[in-house]
């Protein structure tokens, strides 16, 4: 069998079109610059029913139009690749690009459904719905959701990946994209390595998709927990001020003054894991969500003990159980459940992931603390806080039910940015080979492996690098869109 080409039979049709689109765009761009430098103005504008309408077009407007249509043409070609990839069954006809696009078929469908539903109901969806009014926000949301769906469908549902990300097939070491898997039919393998093989003859494409799942497993949750820690400590620090604030701020600045990589090297090495410090840190840090939730419920329903007590009891039992099964790991320093009760331990997080999780959370929470503290100091002078105090509300009620909801805008924006930053940190850990096992398909480790042979073989390092770049970019754009829309109110 022949190895796949990049574009397959679609190439002769679509490639010239895409080239033409790029050329047209560049020409129009140069023309636009030239015209505006030469002092050309856009055509006459008239207002009809409150909307601006161009009455006559000047050359400047025509160059703008050309740019717009060039972009549309380019996007149409990309769409053609996706549709062809889903419609044509034979990989040889649709080429590598078409096949990869086709493998992501569940993701495209899920994206389409998400967008259709969200845009249909956007007036009823609050801030989330408003996101669909901003172009940048929609692009960012699309990229982020692409990777979320890719992670879910590729990881636990096993739909997108073509090979086992850890499986090595001899003869495919560093082979270029589109290589044919020898004896695929007999061994029951997918017949191609779509994006080539890496240094250990594993499929780069499958590892990239699995890497998305590795990131999605850790980054959002680590960020969420860091937020809980930051909020639980930042609210009282900003509200009370004084000694408490000085002390907590000092601690936060202490962690922030550490070079992140040094901290990772000190926390995530096997020797430190052996001493149990990360497990103890996990035991302390994971207490904060419980404190946060229970104080929140208690302060809200304090006046209705009949309702509060059962709810609080149920919540505490459930969260406490989750906490204990999370903290208890047989074989580590925190191993307190007797063997007879081991059924109570609901799940075990693999040691490497827990350490990475804790390290990332630990690095992120001081920044969240500082943001929450600043917001609290600002909001506590507002009238509605004074009104709540006059009503005789408790301090924690004011913090959690008056101040926190009013600080949500900046916090949501920062949450998106921070997931991106956490992804970068995870990649950094992988890049230095810390924490996660070396064969783990996460993007950082894959980049680290691929970079060693970068000057000869590009294909193992580039896909994870570009994936990480696009995910973080998507999160940044999403945060920008959210900021714009939340400022608009």
């Amino acid at each position: 069998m022949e190895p796949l080409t990049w574009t397959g039979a679609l190439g002769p049709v679509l490639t010239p079109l895409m080239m033409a689109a790029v050329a047209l765009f560049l020409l129009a761009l140069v023309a636009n610059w030239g015209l505006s430098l030469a002092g050309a103005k856009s055509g006459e504008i008239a207002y009809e029913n409150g909307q601006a309408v161009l009455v006559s077009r000047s050359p400047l407007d025509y160059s703008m139009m050309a740019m717009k249509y060039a972009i549309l043409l380019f996007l149409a070609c990309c769409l053609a690749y996706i549709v062809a990839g889903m419609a044509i069954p034979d990989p040889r006809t649709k080429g590598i690009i078409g096949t990869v696009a086709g493998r992501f078929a569940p993701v495209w469908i899920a994206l389409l459904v998400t967008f259709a539903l969200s845009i249909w109901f956007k007036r009823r969806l609050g801030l989330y719905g408003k996101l669909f009014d901003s172009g940048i926000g929609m692009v960012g949301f699309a990229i982020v959701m692409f990777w979320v769906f890719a992670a879910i469908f590729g990881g636990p549902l096993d739909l997108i990946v073509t090979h086992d990300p850890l499986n090595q097939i001899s003869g495919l070491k560093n082979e270029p994209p589109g290589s044919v898997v020898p004896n695929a039919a007999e061994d029951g393998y997918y017949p191609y390595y779509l994006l080539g093989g890496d240094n250990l003859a594993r499929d780069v494409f499958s590892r990239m998709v699995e890497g998305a799942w590795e990131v999605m497993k850790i980054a959002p949750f680590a960020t969420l927990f860091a937020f809980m820690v930051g909020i639980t400590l930042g609210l009282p620090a900003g509200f009370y001020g004084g000694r408490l604030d000085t002390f907590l701020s000092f601690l936060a600045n202490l962690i922030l003054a550490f070079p992140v990589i040094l901290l990772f090297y000190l926390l995530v090495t096997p020797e430190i894991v052996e001493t149990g410090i990360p497990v103890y840190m996990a035991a302390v840090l994971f207490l904060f969500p419980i404190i946060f939730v229970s104080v929140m419920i208690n302060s809200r329903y304090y006046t209705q003990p009949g309702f509060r007590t059962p709810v609080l009891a149920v919540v505490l039992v459930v969260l406490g159980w989750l906490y204990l099964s999370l903290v208890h790991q047989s074989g580590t320093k925190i191993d307190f459940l007797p063997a007879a009760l081991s059924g109570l331990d609901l799940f075990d997080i693999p040691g490497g992931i827990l350490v990475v999780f804790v390290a990332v959370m630990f690095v992120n929470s001081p920044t969240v603390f500082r943001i929450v503290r600043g917001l609290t100091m600002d909001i506590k002078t507002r009238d509605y806080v004074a009104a709540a105090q006059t009503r005789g509300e408790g301090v924690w009620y004011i913090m959690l039910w008056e101040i926190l909801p009013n600080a949500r805008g900046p916090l949501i924006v920062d949450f998106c940015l921070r997931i991106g930053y956490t992804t970068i940190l995870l990649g950094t850990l992988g890049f230095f080979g810390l924490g996660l096992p070396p064969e783990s398909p996460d993007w950082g480790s894959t980049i680290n492996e691929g970079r060693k042979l970068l000057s000869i073989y590009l294909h193992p390092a580039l896909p994870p690098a570009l994936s990480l770049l696009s995910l973080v970019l998507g999160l940044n754009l999403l945060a920008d869109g959210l900021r714009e829309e939340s400022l608009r109110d």
Partner: protein
Amino acid sequence: MGLFFLRRLGVMILTALCLTFIVFFLTNLYPNLEKLAKTQGNMRMTDAEVTQWLDNRGYLQPMPVKYAQWLGVAPGWTREFQQDGQTVVTGRCLDGAVPAAEAAEAPRFCGILQGDWGYSTVFRDSVASIIGTRLGLTGYLMFWVMLLMVPSALLLGVLAGMREGSRTDRTLSTFAITTTATPEYVSGVILIAVFASSAVGLRWFKGTATAAMENPNFENFFLPVLTIALYGMGYIARMTRASMAEVMTAQYIRTARLKGVSFPNIVMKHALRNALIAPFTVIMLQFPWLLNGVVIVETLFNYKGFGWTLVQAAGNNDIELLLAVSVVSVIVVLVTQLISDIGYVYLNPRISVT
């Protein structure tokens, strides 16, 4: 002002002490010491031999005592041996085994307060000289990074912020967001792939900066500089843009416009100075992040500077080198914070420290 400065200095010293103690504590945990003993001595040492090895080198003293010795506020440890029929002494302040008479004349205190940074177990050289050379190399790198990053970031930010919402603003902001979203290990890999790999064919630059330590030139030094600069640039540019956009909506700019001042004049003479206050502090606070970038880039491009030393020291649990590295980086971070605070006060007449 004096009181403010003194207070900040006190907090700084306290922070530095706490941080170095944390590093000291973590590097001196027993599993780390065991690994050190096995890599320095013999991989097949028994547990008793490891304890013996550590004890002979003063590693098994209580943690606060060791920390005080390293700091130079407690006398260094000494230990007497019988060797060739006479008493010899080894100790923290002694170079190998020396006769008792000579040992009595050696200084009793030798910590960083006395200027004795210790001895690196990985590089087998004195820590002070290693840090000196490596910092020099990294300083050179940082100089060029700053020279590339700061002007281009300010230019980007001012161009984007002077007409908020315009097409130039949209384009430049997207570029800035893209660079902040690209960590160094991604942009470095992409830059090497495009400009240095034989697979693409554009072999404009070298993919490694090892030669740049001796003989830096554009070909072998530009990619590492660009990689660090790109990541920091986006952030500074966005801050500059925000500050510029805010200044452009101020009353006095409107007054100037209504007076008939030309747009370039408004930007250059009226807006620019006030718009650059915020970016100044941002640039100063970027130093800790640059330190991060330096570690990644020096590893990626194999440029044996300060960041590379950090990785080597941390990877091999070279305690004294690691401590020196953290002291230096913590001082860099704290001093830049102080400078940014003081600079902010001087640049912004609306804020005073008293």
